[in-house]
């Protein structure tokens, strides 16, 4: 069995999504399975088409928002969604959405991007995360 990295993706801001997506890419490249559990604002980020217009950035660095966007465009940095798709292309990246958050926001799996594999509860995420070599909360 491959080693695994588990990420609880709580954030929906582009800066943190970018970090999570690059870590997922790195883990997939280094032959690890990746488990991503979307909850709260992480669910918002994966709502259908939301990534196309999401320009939110962590509020503690809100003044950097426009600069970061300009730099990313100028340096042709891949978007976080492109990174996630790239990670899936080279490795096994499983993305699960938190049932509690979906219930809270009145959403179903159909409201999310098709790369979200399934709806799970926290217990089944823990079952997959239990044996992870690397566990992150982002």
């Amino acid at each position, binding site marked *: 069995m491959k080693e695994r990295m588990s990420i609880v993706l709580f954030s929906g801001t582009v800066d943190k999504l970018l970090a999570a997506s690059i870590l997922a890419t790195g883990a997939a490249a280094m032959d690890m399975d990746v488990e991503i559990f979307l909850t709260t604002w992480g669910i918002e980020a994966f709502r259908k088409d939301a990534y196309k217009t999401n320009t939110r950035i962590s509020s503690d660095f809100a003044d950097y928002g426009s600069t970061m966007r300009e730099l990313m465009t100028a340096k*042709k940095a*891949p978007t976080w969604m492109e990174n996630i798709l*790239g990670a899936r292309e080279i490795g096994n990246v499983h993305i699960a959405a938190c049932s509690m958050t979906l219930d809270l926001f009145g959403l179903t799996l159909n409201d999310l991007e098709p790369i979200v594999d399934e709806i799970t509860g926290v217990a089944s995420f823990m079952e997959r995360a239990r044996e992870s070599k690397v566990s992150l909360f982002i």
Partner: protein
Amino acid sequence: MSGTIDTAVDKEIDARGSFCPGPLMELIRGMKVLPVGGVLAVLSSDPGSAKDIPAWIAKAGHEFLGAEQHEGYTRYIARKAR
């Protein structure tokens, strides 16, 4: 790490200007389609590649043939071993 590496390459990918993890992704994609025994060169201007590319090649079980330093970029050369 410097000097010219005297190896014929089957394919060369120019990933200069590509942002992390771009050059590594280009290398992985390139390796996928290369026949076993083939030699691939990747040009990268990302300083992260200096550690990342050899680390990936070792993990993936390929053969790292070396890196040539050029002005503003590095040329990484690897042979597909499996």
